[in-house]
């Protein structure tokens, strides 16, 4: 039985360090190549030695696919391609290819320049790595080699995020990467056609959550900001540079536009500016509204959002500032926070999750007095708000995607084991498909039942379909022909042509059968009786009585001779070619029943 093997090197019952190996019909594909946020040692990258201990990875992998630009999906790429060594093709979408190096460079800077690590990939390595990247368009079928083909589907989540279908012959796997089934302010919802893959590898970050409508959250967010600005307060929104930040920008920008507000909005610069540039370029990847209106105005050409300068923080009057990083643990956002924390008119809105130990986490858990460096005590009087804007599919979304794609098997990655367990049970129950959730390094084998396409010559097809009733065209149908396996292809031919093509002489194959009948009469008379009998039964066939006493039914020959020992027993010799096997055997069984007694 053919099989598909899946081994997660990362993201198996875990979030972060996504890296999944898939072997399908003899092809090996690596899906994503991410780093783990939680570790600073060797564990931060997937263990590529699993693939091969020595030798270049190129020999073992046919291609690498990166689903989107988040570091937990692409962070290990330069290490993998340049330091471990891989020269094969790397596939990603155009926006991912554009934004990915910015993030990798940023990651490198923080690790090397700030933390002072050595033995890390260099800027040059990032550049070299990106040279190996092949960019793909949505819904474009890319032939990796003669048999392996991949196709990208829209996934929402972040700009350029894609789901990939990997297909070899009739076997296929769909890898979702991270996706979002509800549209947001700048991206649409994930969509896939009914491609019925053998295996769907889905993320399951929110396996046990069903989320509320996005509108309430948006409305709350806008109302909070609006009220504070109207009071004359300042709003600080700590964000990470890419992804949610753009969504919130659009949200505020359109709100400002709609409500005719005048208070300034600032965005701390740096990598955002570059990224915003790409957002402007890749309009086709955004949602309906932005796509439709960009002719009049590109939504990412912010009218109200300006670049932030350090000095602006002390300006009087209301303002809204987006500042990095998102967890208030360092950098500009923390500086601004310290300046504004003392005024109860101000507000800080945390749009995402904060890791324990960060200032963000402390204030969210209600701490009002913070100890800063140098033993300073900072009293937080400003309002603290939490708004979750996450772009992963929730349990319902995952189920919806499964319903759309109709896979034969589902495999869950990128989530916590306990939550996966619940979703797995649900999937099996609702869709009656088997569901797997391997841990890192654990291999799952899925048996497939691929169909094998066979070419049939038109003449034969028409001839064969003409025979018999034109029953349900969708039902499988039995056909006669010669299966020719030649040059790695299968063809169904009519026997004559097959013989001709193979240069073989035709052999006649005849079956003969003797049937003993108790009949005291003459051979000749017996023959006549048999003839009359058959004539009576087989009305649709041409039954002939030949002058030499033998009978033919179509091409089947029947001869009656007397038994050499017992004259009362007549031997009927029935002979037919293998093509008439059906009729021949029917005749024999008919004759074996004997002749009717009368006449």
């Amino acid at each position, binding site marked *: 039985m053919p099989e598909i093997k899946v081994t997660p090197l990362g993201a198996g019952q875990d979030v972060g360090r996504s890296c999944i190996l898939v072997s399908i019909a003899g092809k090996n594909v690596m899906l994503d190549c991410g780093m783990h946020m939680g570790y600073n040692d060797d564990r931060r990258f997937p263990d590529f030695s699993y693939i091969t201990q020595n030798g270049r990875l190129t020999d073992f992998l046919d291609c690498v696919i990166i689903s989107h630009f988040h570091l937990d999906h692409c962070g290990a790429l330069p290490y993998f391609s340049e330091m471990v060594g891989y020269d094969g093709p790397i596939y990603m979408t155009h926006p991912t290819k554009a934004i990915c190096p910015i993030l990798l460079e940023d990651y490198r800077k923080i690790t090397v320049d700030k933390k002072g690590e050595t033995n890390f990939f260099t800027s040059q390595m990032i550049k070299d790595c990106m040279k190996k990247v092949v960019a793909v368009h949505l819904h474009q079928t890319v032939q990796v080699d003669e048999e392996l083909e991949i196709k990208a589907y829209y996934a929402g989540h972040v700009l350029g995020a894609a789901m990939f279908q990997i297909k070899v012959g009739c076997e296929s796997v769909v890898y979702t990467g991270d996706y979002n089934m509800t549209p947001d302010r700048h991206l649409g919802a994930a969509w896939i056609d009914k491609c019925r893959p053998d295996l769907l590898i889905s993320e399951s970050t929110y396996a*046990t*959550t069903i989320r509320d*409508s996005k509108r309430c959250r948006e409305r709350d967010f806008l109302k909070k900001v609006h009220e504070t600005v109207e009071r004359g307060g300042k709003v600080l929104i700590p964000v990470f540079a890419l992804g949610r930040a753009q969504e919130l920008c659009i949200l505020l920008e359109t709100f400002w536009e709609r409500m005719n507000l005048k208070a300034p909005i600032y965005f701390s610069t740096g990598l955002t500016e570059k990224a915003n540039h790409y957002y402007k370029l890749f309009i086709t990847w955004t949602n*309906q509204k932005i796509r439709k209106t960009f002719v009049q105005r590109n939504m990412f050409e912010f009218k109200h959002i300006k670049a932030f300068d350090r000095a602006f923080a002390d300006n009087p009057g209301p303002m809204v500032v987006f500042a990095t990083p998102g967890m208030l643990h360092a950098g500009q956002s923390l500086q601004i926070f310290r300046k504004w924390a003392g005024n109860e008119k101000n507000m800080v809105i945390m749009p995402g999750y904060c890791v324990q130990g960060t200032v963000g986490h402390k204030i969210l858990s209600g701490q009002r007095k913070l100890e800063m460096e140098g033993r300073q005590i900072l009293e937080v009087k400003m309002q603290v708000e*939490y708004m979750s804007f996450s772009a992963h599919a929730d349990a*319902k979304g995952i189920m*919806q995607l499964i319903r759309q794609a109709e896979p034969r098997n589902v495999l869950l990655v990128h989530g916590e084991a306990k939550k996966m367990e619940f979703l797995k049970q*649900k999937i099996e129950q609702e869709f009656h498909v088997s569901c797997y959730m391997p841990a890192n390094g654990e291999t799952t084998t899925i048996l497939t039942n691929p169909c094998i396409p066979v070419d049939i010559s038109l003449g034969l097809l028409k001839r064969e379909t003409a025979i018999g009733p034109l029953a349900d065209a969708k039902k499988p149908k039995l056909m006669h022909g010669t299966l020719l396996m030649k040059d790695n292809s299968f063809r169904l031919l009519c026997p004559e042509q097959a013989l001709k093509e193979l240069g073989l002489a035709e052999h006649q194959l005849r079956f003969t059968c003797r049937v003993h009948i108790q009949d005291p009469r003459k051979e000749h008379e017996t023959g006549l009786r048999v003839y009359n009998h058959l004539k009576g039964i087989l009305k649709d066939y041409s039954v002939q009585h030949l002058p030499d006493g033998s009978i033919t039914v179509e091409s089947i020959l029947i001869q009656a001779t007397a038994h050499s020992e017992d004259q009362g027993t007549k031997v009927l010799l029935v002979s037919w070619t293998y093509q008439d096997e059906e009729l021949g055997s029917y005749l024999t069984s008919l004759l074996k029943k004997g002749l009717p007694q009368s006449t």
Partner: protein
Amino acid sequence: MAAHLKKRVYEEFTKVVQQQHEDLSTKKLRLTKPSKSAALHVDLCKATSPADALQYLLQFARKPVEVESVEGVVRILLEHYYKENDASVRLKIASLLGLLSKTAGFSPDCIMDDAINTLQNEKSHQVLAQLLDTLLVIGTKLPENPSVRMRLVEVACKHLTDSSHGVRNKCLQLIGCLGLVEKGVAKEAESQAAKDVQKIIGDHFNDQDPRVRTAAIKAMLQLHERGLKLQQAIYSQACKLLADDYEQVRSAAVQLIWVLSQLYPESIVPIPSSNEEIRLVDDAFGKICHMVSDGSWVVRVQAAKLLGSMQQVSSHFLEQTLDKKLMSDLRRKRTAHERAKELYSSGEFSSGRKWGDDAPKEEVDTGAVNLIESGACGAFVHGLEDEMYEVRIAAVEALCMLAQSSPSFAEKCLDFLVDMFNDEIEEVRLQSIHTMRKISNNITLREDQLDTVLAVLEDSSRDIREALHELLCCTNVSTKEGIHLALVELLKNLTKYPTDRESIWKCLKFLGSRHPTLVLPLVPELLSTHPFFDTPEPDMDDPAYIAVLVLIFNAAKSCPTMPALFSDHTFRHYAYLRDSLSHLVPPLRLPGRKLVSSTVSPNITPHEDPSQQFLHQSLERVYNFQHLDPQGIQELLEFTIRDLQRLGELQSELAGMADFTATYLQCQLLLIKALQEKLWNVAAPLYLKQNALASAAAKQILEETYKMEFMYSGVESRQVVIIHHMRLQAKALQLIVTARTTRGVEPLFGMCEKFLQEVDSFQRCFISELPHMQGSFVDKLLDLMPRLVTSKPAEVVKILQTTLRQSTFLHLPLPEQLHRATANIIEPTGESDNPLRFTSGLVVALDVDATLEHVQDPQGTVKVQVLYPDGQAQLIHPKPADFRNPGPGRHRLITQVYLSHTAWTEPCQIEVRLLLAYNSNKSKASTRIPKSTWSESLEALPPSENGIEGTIPFSKPVKVYIMPKPARR
């Protein structure tokens, strides 16, 4: 009559007779008709190659064919059909056959047999499909002939086994369109075929080609549309099709399921994999809800739309559509809506969101959670969150329809609708506001909901704000805080967008009159009165203060205790506002104050309000003026006109009527004045100066009559007669004046004839109304008609003059509802001092934003006129899409006007105004008269005479400062 008239006129002047001959020449054309088929025959015979023949056929198809020659043409085509070997030519012939059988007045049963015969030997699938299409056309042309239909259906059934999808498609279409519906006709034949029609179509639900599957479903729907009752057994088949791979199949299947659910709402269907059973409509509702999360947005739109019309669904299922069980980490979570509601009912104020305020509470039983319900769960939650705005709009519409029929559902869907006020697409926001307005009878807004609703008041789009004002007009608010909140927000809106003034006042008017008891406790605060101290008198011109007063006065109307809280200046302000903004301030019965309205009130009948009575009284007076001397008549008319105009300003609901009658009286006044002129007695050479007045009067009357006819909506035929009558009088006046001032008779002949023709057409158009016009100008004129026709122009003029003087003044009956079309240009405001600069020779776009009221068919009639300082005028027809319809009788024009001019040295002002175009051909009178008379009169009169096109300016001109700069070299 007209012909007769003409003849008499022509008898004397033989010059003109030639025209008559020219008219006759049109009839010659008929002789050429039969040659058509022959020409085709020759052409086709000449054709050497199939391409040639195709060319001939294509040319032939461009020209229409007369009914008489259709059959001949068909025969020739068929003849060539059998000879032709090329499939493309046969295809064209087949399509031509279909086209020809569509010819009006041609009965295609004679060619049916031939058409069926052609099917027999045809091998090409495309031609077959086309032939079937032709048969379909033939079949639809013969609806009264069941045996023909039977035959065609049989033919179609025979070809259903064809291997090409196109042929099967057409067959199904044919069966769907022609399959027998009536029962009892041709009993035995029906039992064979008609009964099977549904089964035959149903069998193709499983066809291998999705196009054929779609066609099968469509054919089934077609049967339903034609009145055939579909069998319930189809339901289960249709349900299977919902899971089809192809979107068009699914989309059609959704429709079919909807149709079945409407046909058999109460039948019981089993739920698969359980023993339970539910109503079919509920099951179908669930299934369609499921399709709201389909992969294809076309299907989603379709499903969402259909949900709205499934009103028989049980409330239990309906309410599920808004339910989406939230959970987080397997623990039950409350939705933001539920939290808001709880917060509200517990009476607490929000303490500001804490992290984890929405933390999940109870554990969820993992077994019980159903992630992908087959039922209706959350369908609308999904639909309203959809990626495509088309789906969202459809969902909002569906919500609206369902909520209108179920108050409890309306209450539930409120939160979701309020959420939609924040959608990113304006259309969706607008739609949801309108929806909310429509269901507002069923709901009362909670304070927190009102808060979100009011937040939208700051929207920069005028459409949205106005829609919201409309919504607030009919909203029920539960608390006095709510009213206060609404007022505060509306005032905020007023300061931000001063142009919204009227709309906000109107909104407060309704808010006040709906909630008098809630306003009462707010009065001292709103008027900032103090029990001991006198507070300063607010500024009467402040729009915000007026807004507050409008709210209070309207509340006071049904709350007699309220005026006691007013201070002195409030009463004064009331008197002022009652006068200046009478449409917003209702009459109040104030204690100790003698106001005009309160003095009159005792002796009026409860039904008729005094102003209406006044209108009728003054008209009554005018109609009896016969006994007065000429001077008195003029004065009386002048005063009445003044009164009416004033009344129109005061009483907005009577404005149309008052203006209409005032215009009419004005016409009469002008006519009287013109006839009173001394010029009629003076010798000819002295007219010159004086006639200016009379001819100007005639001209003005003409203009006014066009205004009366086309600017008012609700004008009935009774009024149209009188308007036309007035116009006729004006024309007579014109004729008299010209007769007096011009020398020689030559030009008079034409004018006289024209006038007589007009009298004639008037008589024909309004023959039924003539009895009501005793003693009028036209009545007398018609009596004198035989004399007029024979007399010479000079005599005609003399007769006209005396008739005009003697004729009585006609009563103008008033219709129930009469509204004058008005337009108000909002943008450009005309206040800008900054000229709009552009390079000469290039264009500049000027945004024009205007509101139109009571304009019928604005797309066809409203034009924008731009007047340049050099007297050049430009007329712009706005696109139909530029008109929006925010409410009944109201339209809004938002368009761009392109300006261009050669270079100027200085900036200068151009004028922009709106015009109402009219065409007297399309007058209300002519649409009313029967078709036959109309066509007759068309023959008699050249159209140019009857159809006078013109425009009426109906908005104040707005000046725009522009400056075309010379192009830089």
